[in-house]
């Protein structure tokens, strides 16, 4: 086998790893040849980043092999630590830039220049000869920075650079290290259009120079531009692989990637157990339970979400949809008071703006964070009680517990086990159960089905429907449009922190979805907005 592939190919075979009960990557085979760019796409929780960690060595694989082909010979890297693989020329870019903020761009780049131990020590002793080496390092750094077009920023503290520039500095670091294999984790996330172009151009250059590149990315336009082959992952497995266009055309892929699992949901809702979201009609007239006006949410000084407004009446459901980095979760955290926000937020005509998170919860706001943020050291029941404590306490603990029990019996069966021991799905049920414990008037859910088996999705749709039926207003951030369609009365489409589409769910058809998800993203100067 190995002989036929060109030297410098990175080969992963049968890679698998599980975190507790959750199998993040499950028997994946992947190859990255020199001068080849392999795109990897897939819904959240599909295991893309984990795969990348397995290849870079940041996470040791439970099973499977990683080999670097060297002509006729090969280097086995299965047990090699990240630093060893790095020395073999396997470089990796984290989702968020990892620079030393107090250092200049040049210093950060210089880190990439490999210096042999003794030489490094001579330099540490400050011997005159070391000046030459230092100068050489600096020159190499300058050149690399020149290539990424940042040479005149070489002296800046990297904290003063924009996110895009920081990303470029990281790429420059990889340039000086002259990596042969490059693992990129969403390198375009949160960059302005111009920044995206620069980065894309650079990646293309590297590829043409013979660097093998693994590109994990949501932005399909970039994938189309850069990738030679495409790997679509779902639930830790390779769903499809092959030339980019064919693979993208594959209807199954489209469905999965946009996450449209309508049929399954439909099936679930036809079951008698689940009442269709009828009450909505009556309560449509009702006053808005949650009213958000001109919301701006900040990370530090920058607004990650800008000018978002919506109403949700009792029993209504609003779905926030859009590509990664659109600021959906940010909106929820802003409403919950977990991030600094401006604009008006009213819960049942009470302004929440000035209140701290606990007080907002007290008043009937419930927030279900993205998966796995249960307090893992506490038991299931303790987690539920915690949420009951911090909620409205409208009902007695026992009652609330029963309500969760009838919705998610399997969670309550494990009430005395540690939350950490639950499976992904059960944790998500627990998360929603916690929201219920608070007897809230409005529930904010952040990706309740992220990384769940499709079979579980209907259960959550059902849960949301029941929730609304009790007159609770629901706001849900969701990639799975099937769930959105089934559980929401309205949809708010977002891109880059700005609303791009708002309307009743019926009108949110495939075309709109396609536009919202795959359409060209608007340019924005706020590149920092996806610090999240």
């Amino acid at each position: 086998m190995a002989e036929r592939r060109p030297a410098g190919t990175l080969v992963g075979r049968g890679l698998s790893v599980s975190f507790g009960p959750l199998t993040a990557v499950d028997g994946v085979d992947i190859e990255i040849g020199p001068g080849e760019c392999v795109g990897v796409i897939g819904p959240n929780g599909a295991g893309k980043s984990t795969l990348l960690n397995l290849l870079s060595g940041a996470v040791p694989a439970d099973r499977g092999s990683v080999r670097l082909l060297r002509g006729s010979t090969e280097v086995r890297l299965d047990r090699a630590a990240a630093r060893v693989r790095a020395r073999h020329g396997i470089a990796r870019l984290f989702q968020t830039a990892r620079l030393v903020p107090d250092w200049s761009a040049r210093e950060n780049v210089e880190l990439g220049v490999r210096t042999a131990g003794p030489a490094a020590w001579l330099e540490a002793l400050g011997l005159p000869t070391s000046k030459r080496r230092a100068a050489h390092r600096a020159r190499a750094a300058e050149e690399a920075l020149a290539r990424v077009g940042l040479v005149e920023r070489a002296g800046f503290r990297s904290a003063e650079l924009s996110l895009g520039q920081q990303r470029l500095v990281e790429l420059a670091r990889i340039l000086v290290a002259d990596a042969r294999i490059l693992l990129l984790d969403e390198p375009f996330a949160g960059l302005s259009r111009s920044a995206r172009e620069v980065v894309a151009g650079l990646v293309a250059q590297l590829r043409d120079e013979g660097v093998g590149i693994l590109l994990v990315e949501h932005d399909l336009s970039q994938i189309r531009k850069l990738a030679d082959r495409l790997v679509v992952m779902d639930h830790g497995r390779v769903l499809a692989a092959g030339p980019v266009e064919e693979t993208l055309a594959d209807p199954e892929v489209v469905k999965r990637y946009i996450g449209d699992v309508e049929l399954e949901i439909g099936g679930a809702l036809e079951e008698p157990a689940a009442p269709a979201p009828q009450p909505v009609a009556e309560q449509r007239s009702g006053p808005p339970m949650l009213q958000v006006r001109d919301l701006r949410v900040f990370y530090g000084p920058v607004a990650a979400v800008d000018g978002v407004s919506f109403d949700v009446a009792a029993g209504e459901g609003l779905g926030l949809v859009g590509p990664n980095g659109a600021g959906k979760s940010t909106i929820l955290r802003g409403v919950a008071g977990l991030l600094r926000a401006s604009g008006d937020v009213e819960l049942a005509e009470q302004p929440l703006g000035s209140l701290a998170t606990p007080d907002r919860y007290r008043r009937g706001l419930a927030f279900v964070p993205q998966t796995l943020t249960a307090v893992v050291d506490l038991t299931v029941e303790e987690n539920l009680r915690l949420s009951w404590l911090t909620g409205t306490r409208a009902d007695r603990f026992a009652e609330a517990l029963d309500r969760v029990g009838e919705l998610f019996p399997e969670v309550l069966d494990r009430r005395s086990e540690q939350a950490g021991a639950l499976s992904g799905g059960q944790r998500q049920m627990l998360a929603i159960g916690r929201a219920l414990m608070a007897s809230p008037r409005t529930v904010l859910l952040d990706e309740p089905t992220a990384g769940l088996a499709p079979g579980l999705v209907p259960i959550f749709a059902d849960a949301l429907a029941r929730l609304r039926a009790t007159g609770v207003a629901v706001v849900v951030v969701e990639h799975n449009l099937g769930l959105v369609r089934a559980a929401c009365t309205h949809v708010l489409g977002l891109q880059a922190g700005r609303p791009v589409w708002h309307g009743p769910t019926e009108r949110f058809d495939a075309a709109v979805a396609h536009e919202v998800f795959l359409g060209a993203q608007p340019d924005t100067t706020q590149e920092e907005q996806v610090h999240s």
Partner: protein
Amino acid sequence: MTTIAPAAPARRDVSPARHWRWTQPGLLLTGGALVLLIDPGPFDLRVITLVVAYAVAATGFNVLVGFAGIVSIGNSVFLAAGGYAWALLATSYGPLVALLAGVVLAAVIAALAGVLLLRLRAYYFAVATLALGTLGTVVVRNWTAVTNGDAGITNVGYIKVFGLSGVPSIFVAAVVLLALVSFLQEALRTSPVGQAMIIGRYDPPAAEGIGVSVAYTRVVAFVLSAVTAALGGALIAQLAGGAFPDQFATTSAISLLVIPIIAGRGWRWAPLVGAAIVIALPEYLRFLAEYRLVVYGAAVVLVALFLPGGVHQVVRAVAERLGRSRG
């Protein structure tokens, strides 16, 4: 290729290539010369010398805390190593041998302890080093054959330079040593070794991701802290005219810990400034009589809690204020 508009207005180059490495040693030597010219009273000179000695000792600790981000409460052991090595060897084998022996002894202990303990998490390592320090004191106390126990070793002489005698001679030697270690500190900071330490502290995964062995850099930092501590210990022994267990007890380790943090972790002036605060301040607070330690303790708490950057933070703020007002 298009470039991206700067997010911030152009500032001066902050990269170390622009730092003249020898300015600090130069300033230190000149400062030392000035002090000798002014010729302060014996008490003041002794306190100043003690400050310099502790600055020497704390330079490595500044590297440990500031670069590698490791907290040790056990570095009194290395002070003791240097101090006793001096006390035992200086008069018979000369100062260089004595200093060298102390440094080697300390380095060996640090390497062993580091390899065994540095995998521990922060608090665990801190307390483990505390135990190491206690153990060291017990050994020094009871190994009377070598250390003469609590009575200590007296008449240990002092390093004689430029035909000076007494404290002035120790002072000059201390200043020269401080200049030397300061030069090395700066050289280290800008060298791959030091940069590896810093990235390893700041972001271990990223460090490993670019081929840095974090474990190795941590041990190196610990050994370096031991080396300068040994040098400082030798100077302290000379100043005290002897080596005694109480001199290198936990309190001295705590002083070493407070020095870089109160002055600003990793700042190249931190050892001297911190030592001035930790050693000189209590001496000149004596007019407060019994309340001086109250004031000192409170000061440490407030700085730790509300001024995490230490003195350096203030200096920086002032500098930037000035810079802005100028341009």
